[in-house]
């Protein structure tokens, strides 16, 4: 079971939690595990063709998974998988 950190914009889709324990030995398996637990997350992260959207970054610990083996990157029990879409907020007037 690795720890998956959920960004604020996805928390509603996972019942409001910040982290989840998800089974799986690779990034791909962990994401599938996450979608199995919370199906609505899939539609926010994955294109109709089944690819992860380009605006979603996935990190295994502190490394960008795209620079490792991307979806095949192995994930162990002590690893943290962090899903990171960009945030825009800054000065928001009102």
């Amino acid at each position: 079971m690795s720890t998956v950190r959920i960004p604020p914009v996805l928390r509603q889709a996972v019942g409001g939690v910040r982290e989840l324990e998800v089974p799986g030995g690779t990034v791909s398996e962990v994401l599938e595990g996450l979608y199995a637990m919370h199906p609505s997350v899939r539609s926010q992260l994955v294109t109709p063709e089944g690819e992860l959207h380009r605006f979603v970054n996935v990190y295994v610990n502190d490394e960008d998974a795209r620079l490792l083996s991307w979806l095949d990157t192995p994930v162990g029990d002590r690893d943290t998988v962090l899903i990171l879409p960009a945030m825009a907020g800054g000065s928001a007037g009102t």
Partner: protein
Amino acid sequence: MAHSYQDLLAQAREEVPEIQVPDLAARLDGADAPLVVDVREQSEWDEGHVPGAVHVPRGFLESRIGGVARPDQEVVLMCAGGNRSLLAGTTLRAMGYGNITSLAGGFTRWKQSGNAVQVPRTLTPDQRARYSRHVLIPEIGEEGQLKLLDSRVLLIGAGGLGSPAALYLAAAGVGTIGLVDDDVVDVSNLQRQVIHSTERVGMLKGESAREAIAALNPDVAVDVHATRIDRDNVLELMSQYDVVVDGADNFPTRYLLSDASLMTRTPLVHASILRFEGHASVFLPYEGPCYRCLFPEPPPPDLAPACGEAGVLGVLCGVMGTVQATEAIKVLLGAGDTLAGRLLVYDALGMTFTELKVRRDPECPACGPGARLEFRDYDAWCAGVGRHVAVGA
């Protein structure tokens, strides 16, 4: 047994070898120039010193030498006549500095021999008092403080991030602060936008910030740009400043700023915030990754709510805005390691700071080697026009 001043001096002369003025002058031009440490008082230093020398008053020698010289480094100590530097030499030897010499005849002989003298620009007495806690830091010192006073920082937004960033940059004595914001202060801003005040509700944010900054530090000039930053004005605005602090509230502006920072080669200090979470990084054009290396594409609007829709913890702005001010000051001073190449993720609910590695993308359409960088229609692009179909939430 008591020792007189002459006894101490004689003993120091035995312990600390002396270097003659012509020898030092010749060596300062060479590749293996020693570090010259001037141990005179501030007022003596202000009247002129050896070019390239470092000033450490003798009273602070023990506490500050570690910040300027390593124990194995060759150090030439100097004072006005060559006696205080000999005594200082015995102190450094006792601290384990093995390669110490003292300039015979000191600054007086240096000057009499017709060598170059640098008369430093100095802080005024008022400035020396105001910035005394900065001047004490070896990485800043008087030189660094003067550099800050000469610096110009542009803040995009005088809102959640811009408020704390502007206050701390102003307090730090950054000489010119530009504020780009066309909005007016609203009562709902005051939960986090600490540069404004209840009585200034309705005032243009830039003007409100100018009042707060003037009250805090009259050394600081404030340029108010009451406009929205866009393709037509971004290059001219950015090129007037040394560093840009991005506190924008939307993706089109963030991508515009990133591209313009590459075009003008202006360092960009980034932060973004939502609810309890903050991101921060520094984008140094063509040295480190840019915003598009990190996020090649913006998320669709439904996955990118603004703080006005999703909310933000007021104090989160304080943390992230002051991180930006810190990084801007470091970039200006050339001190320390900035967040270039790293994304700091702050989760206020868990009180965790996580660091992610960000690398330059060799295929980056903005800063990659083959990139043909030009402005695009950022609004349409971020709305997803012609890029991706909207995803269901």
